[in-house]
């Protein structure tokens, strides 16, 4: 009997056969990288990769394949995401040159590039004819997450975007819909497209089911809350700074409304939702305890049970809702392009060329397509071709809707704030979210946060930061087009 895993292997084999047996006149970026890299046979390159599931890609798939094709060993340096920036900077500042290739969160790129930790990739891109394929990366990622000061420092390699997941069977329940109409005098919106509707529907579901199914749950743990705040604040019309004075404006009415609404939403969410992070929220949704949530793309795949039969995925709760999940933009229609990853080359690398060729190969159209389809991978579609790939569309019955939601997210997504020393600003937001759950007043929290942001800006230099902010704010995904 042919299992899904066998089918996957056949698909991968066919994909690579197609990729690497093309005639010379149609050489792909992957072919070019492989051929050029063969001169480095016997060498070892190291790449910093997020520890955990993310690393299974280079450990189980791309690393061994690269070795087979080029004879170059890939040493995967697994680092928890919270320590990646520190490790990269420490390696750069110490001059150790321990890392050749890097995974970099796009919001870090200005800091790393300005510090000199990243190699400018333009000369390599031209030398190895990669510009055409780079252009096929979805515009949001390509135009916003690749360059600093007009130079390429990384290849967008992960289409991280928040998607709203909702239970079609719950929201579509005729009894629930009738009761909703009776109470509010309007049809239950499926799915809700504004936060006002979302909150009303969420509260009603909890009330209607008596808490058997909660209306919604979210990431509330402060690390994730930072991303949620950035999205919600901007969809409510908020701006992070006054562009003229660089004074923080997160304590505006929009910010206070977000925090106040969050407190109200927790009341119709599961008890203790304030503590929920990625796994708790996932478990709640997959086990049918919550009707709506907002999260990264893997939720959608796992809710459909795609890939969860793999041993490495045994920690993912078994989905009880496969086939019942709808995919949509989060209310407001502008999802956060939360985190994501770019592939870069360390400026301190002693194997820059080989490292570059590896990331070109990884990021190429052919290879990236296989990587985003790996059942255990956390890399999400980021190229136009990924969203329309027939193989991906056939992975589960609703994959078409899923990919459409991801593509819509990519087209309308909001970039993470990216300034000089971004993490300092984000840390203030993380602490603010944490204070909110501790019961402090939203306005007081945000006033204090704005003060801390101003102090950070002053320390970095108002004019210096103003220029970086202006550059970021001019990007298409910085603020929603109202």
């Amino acid at each position: 009997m042919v299992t899904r895993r066998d089918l996957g292997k056949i698909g991968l084999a066919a994909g690579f056969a197609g990729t690497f047996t093309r005639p010379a006149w149609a050489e792909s970026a992957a072919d070019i990288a492989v051929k050029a890299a063969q001169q480095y046979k016997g060498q070892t390159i190291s790449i910093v990769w997020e520890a955990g599931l993310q690393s299974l890609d280079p450990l189980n798939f791309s690393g061994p394949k690269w070795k087979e094709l080029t004879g170059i060993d890939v040493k995967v340096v697994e680092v928890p995401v919270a320590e990646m920036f520190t490790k990269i900077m420490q390696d750069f500042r110490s001059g150790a040159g321990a890392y050749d290739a890097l995974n970099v969160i796009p919001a870090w790129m200005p800091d790393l590039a300005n510090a000199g930790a990243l190699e400018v990739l333009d000369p390599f891109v031209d030398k190895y004819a990669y510009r055409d394929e780079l252009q096929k990366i979805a515009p949001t990622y390509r135009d916003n997450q690749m360059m600093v000061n007009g130079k390429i420092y990384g290849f967008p390699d992960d289409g991280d975007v928040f998607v709203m997941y909702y239970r079609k069977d719950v929201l579509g329940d005729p009894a629930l819909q009738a009761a909703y109409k009776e109470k509010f005098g309007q049809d239950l919106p499926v799915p809700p497209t504004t936060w006002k509707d979302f909150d009303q529907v969420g509260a009603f579901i909890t009330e209607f089911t008596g808490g058997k199914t909660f209306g919604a749950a979210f990431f509330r743990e402060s690390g994730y809350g930072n991303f949620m705040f950035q999205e919600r604040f901007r969809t409510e019309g908020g701006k992070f700074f006054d562009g003229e004075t660089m004074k923080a404006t997160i304590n505006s009415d929009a910010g206070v409304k977000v925090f106040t609404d969050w407190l109200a939403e927790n009341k119709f969410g599961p008890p203790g939702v304030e503590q929920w992070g990625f796994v708790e929220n996932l478990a709640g949704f997959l086990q049918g305890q919550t009707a709506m949530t907002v999260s990264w793309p893997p939720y959608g795949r796992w809710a459909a049970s795609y890939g969860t039969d793999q041993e490495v995925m045994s920690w993912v709760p078994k989905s009880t809702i496969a086939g019942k999940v709808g995919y949509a933009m989060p209310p407001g229609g502008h999802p956060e392009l939360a985190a994501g990853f770019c592939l870069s080359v360390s400026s301190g690398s002693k194997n820059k060329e080989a490292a570059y060729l590896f990331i070109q190969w990884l990021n190429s159209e052919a290879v990236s397509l296989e990587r985003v389809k790996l059942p255990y991978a956390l890399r999400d579609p980021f190229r136009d071709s990924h969203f329309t790939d027939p193989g991906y569309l056939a992975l589960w019955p609703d994959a078409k809707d899923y990919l459409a939601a991801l593509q819509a997210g990519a087209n309308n997504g909001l970039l993470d704030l990216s300034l000089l020393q971004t993490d300092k600003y984000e840390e203030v937001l993380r602490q603010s979210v944490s204070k909110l759950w501790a019961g402090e007043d939203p306005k007081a929290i945000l006033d204090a946060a704005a003060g801390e942001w101003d102090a950070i800006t002053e320390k970095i230099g108002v004019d210096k930061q103003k220029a970086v902010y202006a550059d970021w704010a001019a990007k298409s995904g910085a603020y929603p087009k109202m």
Partner: protein
Amino acid sequence: MAAATALRANPDRNFRYWLLTPAIFLLLLVGLFPLFYSLAVSFMRIDMMDTDTSFAGLYNYGNLFKDKRLWEALGHTLLITVIALPIELLLGLAMAYLFLEKMPGRQIFVSLLVLPTIISPIVAGATWRLLFDNRFGPINQILGWFAGHPVTALWTINPRLVYPAIIFCEIWQWTPFMFLILLAALSNVDRSQTEAAAIDGAGFSRTFLRIVLPAIWPVMAIAILIRGLDLVRIFDIIWALTSGGPGTMTETISVYTYAQGFKQFETSYTAAIAFLVIVILTVVVTWAIRRMGLAK
């Protein structure tokens, strides 16, 4: 011949110092060099995000006094220390008394009681985080059985619960250390003196205060000092349980120093904080050693 005899009679007086040189050099290298280097760094402007490494004079030390979060962190550290230390001491002493007499299975019980001390603090913190978890943790579930309804206490978020949770973990892990040390000390108290006191009609408290406490005091003082210093440096359990949150409500001086150094990359300022802590601890420990009579 005469020279050889003289050499045998007067071997190089400095030879013994030459033998000590490698060890002293090593000690200086691994001990004093980092200390002096950190001191030098604290007077500079080093920040991992910037290339400016110029001399900053007392700038970083001046900032220490304006840094409200730093003093709050010191306050949190002090709060945990003054609550956890006496409880650990009293519980450890009570347990030591309990296990002083021979009883069946004593060795096994003692070994089991000491187990928490063997566990790495970060592992202990992570374990307790799971135990306290609102959704998957058994503590709320057990409390729910007693309460007769589901309990959803947010142990690591609720401001009223977060310190009890931290202090409980700390006491759970380190009371056995006190217990073990005090058990050894109590075992060495001269039985003939306590028996004589009993014959003379002295009660437990009088015997304890006049005979046992003076006898075990040097050991107890050392245990208090070690645990006190450990508590001032507390990091792992806090980091695993709350990461200093909610907000900065449970941020101790070690957590704050880590955050400044490795999350905010303020290298020079972090070095200044480290030296402030060294100064404070030196003063406190010197005072404590004198006060406890350990300097005699």
